[in-house]
């Protein structure tokens, strides 16, 4: 190969003519580098960064909730503040913490697992992250209400209608001001971002697999990414429409949920939960994917019953669309409907159980290495099981008539959400940290944080089962001292502080490691899937040569068939070089511009009122400006086309020196 001899990096555009406007951003670092990046790893990092920030915000809100409930008749928060707190806590944790954290892993890890150099639509990917940020901003504007009010702009609080915002509480009559509008528009943008990202993942997983990577060889994490993406693409439209309807009611005077006009508020519940239930599987399936990667790696043996695990994931996803009314057992649906949804809900326990059994099967006969990720993974299996069982208890509809809207439900979903999703995501962070940043987290501190989190978590949420059965309703800012709830609440609060401490240690250690941690070589855990075949941290082009896949655990196979693979890679490298080298997409600012336009426009619409109020021109103006900015972004985005440049590497995998004249 003449790689070493060719003395420059050849960057060639495929477009014959380009106007000056369509510059190709070159900076890889600095603000501009981040704003224009289309690299899936950087975008994944951004998702993770924002998700962790919002996890801390949501956790802070949770601690305030717990502080208020520590003793009866507590007065740390007012009723209104408390309501804001749990609404924002739920919304933040679900949409701004767990979902983007999963998206971070999808972005960073999934392309590496299938042997791809990028996602199918890199700029769409950039659009997703920035639209996500825009949605997060709108959702949280309300906190600055008092400040905004002083500045003469509309103020009002953060949203306070609960995370599932049941109408008619969200109507203008019962929620005047704009708090609910922030919630509506914020979720709307988050939906756009999620759908765009998921479309991208679906196409990537289906179409960008390395040669030989058949669907039944995909790593389970990638499979779960695919199923999750389908769930997002298919369930978010329902909440989008539901939110549009609320927005129309609030801002344009329609009657969707307006009782005086013949509207039926119950319709909102159906539309919301048609989305809402698949949503909880959107939160758990990526977690299950991560667990299905970690357990085999640390047992040093393949996943037990791979096809069945994959299939059960798909059936969980599919069944997830047929159970939504189990959140509405107390709405008086009638006997037949209740029975049908109760049965469908129970049915989900079967494919979920299959996963648990297969995980245990994976451990059986292995060499279990008890590292931090493994601890979290085992914690996941235990805790998720408990949460799943309380889920099955809910599915017995008459019994749920007592549990619904009580702390029993709170206990159920925190066991599946923290014990499930969060544990798995924390496991994933530890697991892939050496890959992502080339540094390893200290085992001692990792395990310590695990035990504190594990203990704190159980102390917080196990008593909540008893609270719920003892009649404590959720979403209550205060309670009487004579109901037998004092001790359990106090213990739960203490547990929450311990949990917070554990989280603090966990993240402090992560931050420390990011800057100062011990450097490691590639394949730190003796991994099984393709991402471990890369140098750490992975170079911008990921794979020096696109690998050819021969088995399910592709990297494990490679490690055990080294000569054969070396020959094959040399061949592929030659072929690829003949095609001009590694194709890389140009960075682009236009996705960011389009998202910015969306943000501006959404802010404009947020402040609309049913009756044209003063300031309507300003609002219309802002909306229009936003629309124009977005159109400009999309227009240039489509004009610049999906061009890129070719990269040539030296022996060590470094891009060969840049030729300044090759710029466009």
């Amino acid at each position, binding site marked *: 190969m003449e790689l070493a001899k060719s003395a420059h990096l050849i960057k060639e555009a495929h477009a*014959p*003519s380009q*106007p000056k*406007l369509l510059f190709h951003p070159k900076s890889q670092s600095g603000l501009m580098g981040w704003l224009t990046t289309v690299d899936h790893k950087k975008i994944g990092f951004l998702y993770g960064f924002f998700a962790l920030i919002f996890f801390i915000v949501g956790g802070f809100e949770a601690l305030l909730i717990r502080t208020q409930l520590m003793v009866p008749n507590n007065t740390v928060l007012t009723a209104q503040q408390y309501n804001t707190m749990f609404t924002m806590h739920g919304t933040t944790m679900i949409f701004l913490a767990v979902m983007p954290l999963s998206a971070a892993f999808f972005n960073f890890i999934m392309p590496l697992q299938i042997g791809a150099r990028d996602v*199918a*639509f890199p700029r769409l990917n950039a659009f997703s992250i920035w639209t996500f940020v825009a949605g997060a901003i709108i959702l949280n504007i309300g906190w600055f209400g008092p400040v905004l009010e002083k500045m003469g702009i509309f103020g009002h609080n953060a949203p306070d209608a609960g995370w599932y915002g049941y109408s008619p509480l969200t109507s203008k009559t019962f929620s005047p001001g704009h708090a609910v509008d922030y919630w509506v528009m914020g979720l709307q943008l988050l939906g756009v971002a999620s*759908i765009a990202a998921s*479309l*991208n993942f*679906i*196409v990537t997983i*289906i*179409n*960008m*697999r390395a040669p030989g*990577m058949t669907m039944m060889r995909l790593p389970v994490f990638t499979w779960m990414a695919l199923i999750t993406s389908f769930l997002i*693409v*298919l*369930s*978010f*439209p*329902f909440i*989008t*429409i*539901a939110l*549009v*309807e609320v927005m*129309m009611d609030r801002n*344009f*005077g*329609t*009657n*969707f949920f307006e009782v005086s*006009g*013949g*509207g*039926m508020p119950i*319709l909102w519940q159906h*539309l919301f939960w*048609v989305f809402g239930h698949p949503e909880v599987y959107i939160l758990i399936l990526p977690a299950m994917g991560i667990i299905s990667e970690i357990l085999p790696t640390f047992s040093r043996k393949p996943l037990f019953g791979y096809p069945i695990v994959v299939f059960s994931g798909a059936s969980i996803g599919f069944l997830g669309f047929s159970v939504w009314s189990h959140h509405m057992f107390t709405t008086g649906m009638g006997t037949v409907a209740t029975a049908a949804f109760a049965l469908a809900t129970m049915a989900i326990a079967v494919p979920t159980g299959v996963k648990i059994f297969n995980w245990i099967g994976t451990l059986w006969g292995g060499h279990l290495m008890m590292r931090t990720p493994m601890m979290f993974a085992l914690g996941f299996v235990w805790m998720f099981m408990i949460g799943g069982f309380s889920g099955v208890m809910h599915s017995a509809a008459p019994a749920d008539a007592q549990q619904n809207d009580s702390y029993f439900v709170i206990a159920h979903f925190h066991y599946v959400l923290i014990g499930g999703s969060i544990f798995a995501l924390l496991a994933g962070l530890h697991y892939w940290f050496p890959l992502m940043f080339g540094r390893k987290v200290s085992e001692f501190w990792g395990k310590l944080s695990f035990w504190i989190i594990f203990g704190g978590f159980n102390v917080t949420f196990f008593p909540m089962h008893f609270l719920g059965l003892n009649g404590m309703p959720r979403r209550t800012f205060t309670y009487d001292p004579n109901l037998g709830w004092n001790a359990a609440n106090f213990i739960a609060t203490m547990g929450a502080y311990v949990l917070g401490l554990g989280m603090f240690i966990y993240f402090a250690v992560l931050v420390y490691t990011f800057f100062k941690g011990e450097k490691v070589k590639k394949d730190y855990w003796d991994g099984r899937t393709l991402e471990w075949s890369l140098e750490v941290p992975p170079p911008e082009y990921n794979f020096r040569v696109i690998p050819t896949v021969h088995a399910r655990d592709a990297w494990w196979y490679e490690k055990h068939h080294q000569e054969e693979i070396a020959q094959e890679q040399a061949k592929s490298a030659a072929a690829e070089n003949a095609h001009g080298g590694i194709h890389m997409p140009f960075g682009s600012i236009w996705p960011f511009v389009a998202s910015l336009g969306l943000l501006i426009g959404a802010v404009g619409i947020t402040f609309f009122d*049913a009756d044209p109020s003063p300031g309507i021109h300003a609002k219309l103006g802002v909306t229009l400006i936003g629309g124009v900015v977005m159109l400009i972004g999309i*227009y240039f985005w*489509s*004009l610049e086309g999906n061009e890129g440049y070719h990269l040539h590497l030296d022996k060590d995998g470094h891009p060969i020196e840049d030729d300044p004249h090759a710029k466009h």
Partner: protein
Amino acid sequence: MSSHSASAAIDHHHDPSTSTGIPNKKLLMWTFLASDCMFFGALISTHLIYRLHPPAGGLEPKIIFSPELTSFSTFILLMSSLMMALAVTAIQKGNVKSCRWSLLTTIFFGMIFLGCQVYEFNHFVFEKKMTLSNSILGTTFYTLTGTHGCHVAIGVLWLALMYVRSFKVSVEKSWFSHQLLHTVTLLGALLLSLKVTLGLVHALQTEPSIGAGFGHFFAAEFIFIALALVAFGLLAFFFARPRGPVQFTEVNAIDVESMGLYWHFVDIVWIVIFTAVYLLEYL
């Protein structure tokens, strides 16, 4: 079963660079359409649920809807779908000229459909007194058909951009401003002719005789007629004149094709809406 294009180099049903052979853009579009099914599923459900349980004293759609107009616009949309399909086959064979014509017709039909909808909304609001907020029927009807209309409008915009793009020449400095002007003129011409048509219909309906109607029409719409003519003139004799080899070739078939998928989908949604929203009311 692939259709055989003149050049064997591009196989429009197989893209060797992807794992499945399905081009990325096509896969993206189909997935999006699956998602869009859910969008319209939610909207149509809302509408039908409220039609099944109308509040007492609500409006009666039978006396509001006009089957003639809707049948006409349904027919137009069907025909636009045909033209779209033809545009795709044309570009797959590398026939840019024929593709352009088909695209233009599609745009034109799309605009007629939109015009009918504007007219319909106008009519319902001012003559039949059904507004967005005075009844649950108005609420769900306008939201559902309006969302569909937005889909059509986005489609028209996309088509227009694609049409203009098909003129993008390989070597020229000012192509960007040229393109922008071209797009604006095209959309302007269409909007103007829409305005003129609506004016004509209105005049013919309100004036006692045909002659008076035309008289009134010319007097009232003179400026718009003139502007429309100018715009069409520009389109035909300035923007569409050949200026060298264009970049738009068979390679772009996939772009036209995925746009076509979108357009056809908007058409099938209308097929459902036509039956579920309009026809069923007449039983």
